[in-house]
């Protein structure tokens, strides 16, 4: 072992160099110090074959919580550099292309590092949390029962705290997250930039964080807090061991699914998997259970030795989808490609709910549920990039019910199934949910307006304490599936929370909104809407078509109608001039190419009577 405990703690960097280095010096210094310094040789843990030598009092688990973009992953990388786990300058914890591009973390991971302090080696586990709102809340709530996760808050330069959880009083935050007993470290901007501070910061983690409270001697109790799919080994489960120890060959079971597995591999995560024989209580790492399907790995699940008794850890969260969208292949011929892509990607992301769906115009597809708009966007980007799929994302539909005069009922999803003979209909029904909102009172007004706007009916309004309000509203599902949750978050700067549960069906005056071009109905653009929303929806559709239908030989009259009644209308003027001014020798080749392209373009258009409808115009209406 390179590190000699008798030499004591390494001197602060200022003493080595005679001054406090600034930010631009950091990577240079890291290089120099890591190479020359005897205390932090590289790859410390790669040579360690066991974590048995780290009892609970020598283990600390901590997490960095910060708003998207606040450099949390950079900080994490600097810490890994400081402790010799990685080479300087590499950004390691965000590894998906979409993560690098958007500068966000999608998957949470942990990284273990060894920190030397006063002659003792400590195993510090950094839990990387996703920065965007929904997942971070869930992550933190998950760890709460373990009570030993130290949170490291990041503040930005001018103390204008953009941190989504911070307010003027940190205690308020902690009470909201039920973290009253958890230790917090605040990281100020100046600290962030100097290298010696990283060492100091790690020291603070040691001092301020609780050591894990479990015991090796108790029966095994393991928390699963993340997973991903590895092509060769199956599902990799990221775990924190509360009690006991888990090793290769152990038989374990999941408390929530009831399934059993044999442990194939156990180890620490240090930007890659480092296998060791056993993980002990208080330690964080990964296990390979031979799991083939990532739907079996539920975040918050508890694992224990098969046959023994266990009290499951609280905090098991079933991800509830908040945003829905229709996902269709651009062309029905690409349906198999998209289906395979979806299967593969959902293996890796079990928080996406998948339902089959179909549409008159687009054929077969799916309705997918996501945790939020960002989740949906990232998912779509991954489908397009990693699987080369071309996708159409549409506003989702909800299943409506119609009750006929003769008593029979029918559920329909498609506007095409809207009953033609309206006189046979007794009433229509739409699905509703019971939504629960918890918000600080300063955002109450905005949220009440939002619910009002979305045809919500207030069921309850209660002050939980001086400043926090609980709201219960029944809301039509159709008003919730698009972006309700994201609106709630944005109107309340992230402070309010929203949850919902199904609440049956309620009567609603529904109508079928038709779209006509020069008098001809375009089936593919029809939709079913609540009567009150018909006018605004119709107007929006007509507007989008007007902007996207190209001028043609004849005037195009765009109309939105309910039955025979026209409720909105726009016009696209006829084309008056479309001719190439010059046509001499040098122009001819180019002009022929242009005309040929125009002809090809025409072939791709759909002919509705005498109106040419391009794919883009069509998409402008149905796409999200």
């Amino acid at each position, binding site marked *: 072992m390179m590190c000699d405990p008798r030499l004591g703690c390494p001197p602060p960097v200022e003493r080595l160099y005679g001054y406090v280095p600034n930010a631009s010096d950091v990577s240079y210094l890291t290089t120099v110090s890591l190479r020359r310094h005897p205390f932090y040789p590289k790859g410390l843990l790669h040579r360690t074959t066991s974590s048995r030598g780290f009892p609970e009092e020598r283990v600390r688990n901590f997490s960095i919580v910060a708003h998207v973009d606040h450099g949390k992953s950079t900080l994490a990388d600097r810490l890994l550099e400081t402790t010799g786990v990685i080479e300087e300058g590499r950004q390691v914890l965000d590894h998906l292309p979409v993560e690098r591009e958007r500068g966000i973390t999608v998957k949470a991971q942990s990284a273990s590092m060894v920190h030397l302090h006063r002659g003792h080696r400590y195993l510090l586990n950094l839990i990387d949390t996703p920065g965007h709102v929904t997942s971070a809340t869930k992550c933190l709530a998950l760890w709460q029962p373990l009570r030993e996760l130290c949170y490291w808050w990041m503040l930005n330069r001018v103390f204008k705290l953009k941190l989504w959880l911070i307010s003027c009083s940190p205690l308020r935050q902690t009470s909201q997250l039920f973290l009253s007993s958890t230790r917090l470290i605040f990281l100020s901007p100046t600290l962030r930039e100097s290298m010696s501070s990283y060492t100091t910061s790690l020291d603070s983690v040691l001092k301020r964080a609780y050591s894990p409270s479990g015991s090796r001697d108790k029966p095994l109790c393991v928390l699963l807090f993340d997973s991903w799919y590895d092509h060769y080994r199956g599902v990799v489960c990221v775990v924190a061991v509360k009690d006991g120890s888990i090793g290769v060959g152990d038989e374990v079971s999941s408390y929530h699914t009831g399934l059993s597995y044999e442990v194939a591999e156990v180890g620490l995560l240090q930007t890659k998997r480092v296998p060791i024989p056993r993980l002990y209580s208080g330690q964080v790492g990964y296990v390979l259970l031979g799991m083939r399907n990532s739907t079996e790995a539920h975040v918050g699940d508890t694992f224990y030795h098969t046959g023994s008794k266990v009290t499951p850890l609280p905090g098991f969260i079933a991800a509830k989808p908040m945003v829905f969208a229709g996902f269709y292949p651009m062309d029905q011929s690409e349906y198999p490609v998209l289906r395979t892509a979806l299967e593969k990607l959902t293996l890796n992301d079990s928080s996406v709910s998948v339902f089959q769906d179909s549409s008159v115009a687009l054929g077969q597809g799916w309705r997918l549920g996501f945790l939020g708009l960002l989740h949906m966007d990232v998912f779509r980007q991954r489908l397009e990039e990693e699987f080369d799929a071309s996708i159409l994302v549409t506003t989702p539909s909800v299943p409506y019910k119609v009750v006929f005069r003769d008593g029979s009922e029918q559920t329909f999803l498609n506007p095409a199934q809207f009953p033609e003979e309206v006189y046979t209909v007794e009433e229509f029904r739409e699905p509703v949910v019971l939504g629960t909102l918890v918000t600080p009172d300063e955002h109450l007004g905005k949220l009440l307006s939002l619910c009002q706007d979305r045809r919500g009916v207030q069921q309850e309004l209660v002050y939980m304490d001086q400043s926090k309000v609980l709201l219960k509203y029944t809301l039509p599902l159709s008003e919730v599936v698009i972006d309700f949750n994201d609106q709630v978050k944005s109107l309340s700067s992230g402070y309010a929370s929203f949850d919902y549960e199904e609440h049956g069906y309620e009567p609603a005056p529904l109508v079928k909104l038709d779209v006509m071009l020069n008098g001809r109905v375009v089936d593919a653009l029809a939709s079913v809407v609540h009567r009150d929303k018909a006018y605004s929806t119709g107007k929006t559709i007509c507007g989008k078509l007007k902007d996207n239908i190209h001028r043609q030989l004849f005037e195009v009259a765009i109309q939105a109608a309910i039955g025979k009644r026209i409720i909105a209308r726009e016009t696209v003027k006829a084309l008056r001039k479309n001719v190439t001014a010059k*046509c001499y020798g040098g122009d001819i080749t180019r002009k022929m190419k242009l005309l040929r392209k125009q002809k090809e373009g025409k072939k791709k258009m759909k002919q509705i009577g005498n109106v040419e409808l391009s794919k883009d115009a069509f998409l402008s209406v149905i796409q999200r």
Partner: protein
Amino acid sequence: MSSAEPISLYVHIPFCETKCPYCDFNTYAAIEPLMPTYVAALKSEIALWGSLLDGPEVHTVFFGGGTPSYLPSEDIRHTMKAITTAFNLAPCAEVTLEANPGDFTADKLAAYLDCGINRLSIGIQSFDDDLLQTLGRRHNAADAVHAYRQAADAGFENISIDLMYGLPYQNIQQWQSTLAQALELAPPHISMYCLTLEGGTPMERWVDQGSMPTPDADLAADMYLMAQDEMRHGRYRHYEISNWAQPGRRSQHNLTYWRNDPYLGVGPGAHSYLGDCRFSAIKSPREYIRRMQSVSPDSCGEPMRAMISSVPVVDEIEQIDTPLEMAETMMMGLRLDEGIGIAGFKERFGEPPSHFYADTLDELERLELLHTQEDALRLTHRGRMLGNEVFSRFFN
């Protein structure tokens, strides 16, 4: 191979004193030092083609560019000499030179007449000084009128002027005034072009960025209609979509294009259509010069394409098969007021147009864009305005 049919000859002069912001032709400012070597290369190319094609009959010559009038008149004289040596120039051939109103001097004009130029095309564009500035032209309206009169006085009888409409900031009154002044000048031939914003030009960038207003397409349509109406007051025949001529003054050279007849282009970026090939030369003047300097004339009697490829400056060649030739003949010919002569078409292709395009012609008639008469197919007034809608339908 010896060309049985007379061809038209186009000569490209890629030099300009300044480059207009809307121009996307193959022309350059500030390369004057290349002029001497360029003229030498041009003469070389002309000689090469003369020998390859075995001294074909040339019935029109057109000096275009760029600004041919920017070249010293001596160079024009030398080039004409090379042409008459290499080709068989018809005695009453139309020989046109494009000119900028700022370049006219009595000496130059005399020299042109002397070496065989018998038609001038003057790029006036507008009689409104403000608009001329917007267009970046280096002359004003008075210069333009003066230049015209100089040319007429020097002895040119066949003069054409170019005008532009659909310009940013141009209103209908300015256009009306330009038309009035043009009619007063009464040149034998007038071309009028709607401004097209071409990609990569400064003007397109300005409009894109918003520092120049987007030209209004409907206003341009109105201007075109106004031009049609006003020109009826003179003795002009609206013989092509963008061209008007007094009796006997139609541009013979351009008619070659519209009738889809063969033509040879020499100079950098020039386009040609011989036999069943349409081809163009390398665009860069420097490269053009370099390549011509390394040439040695080769054998004739090969298939058209192989022969053309042997000329080192040729850059892109497109082979036109009969269906395409037919479609292009329709598209180009309909631009003319004489339309597509049914007899002529039958002679060229074996059957009348209705044999090949029955459905298309029916549809166009129904849409009132085309009408079929005994002797010819012609565009209607509306068809002229919506020409591209008609033309694109002839591709299969």
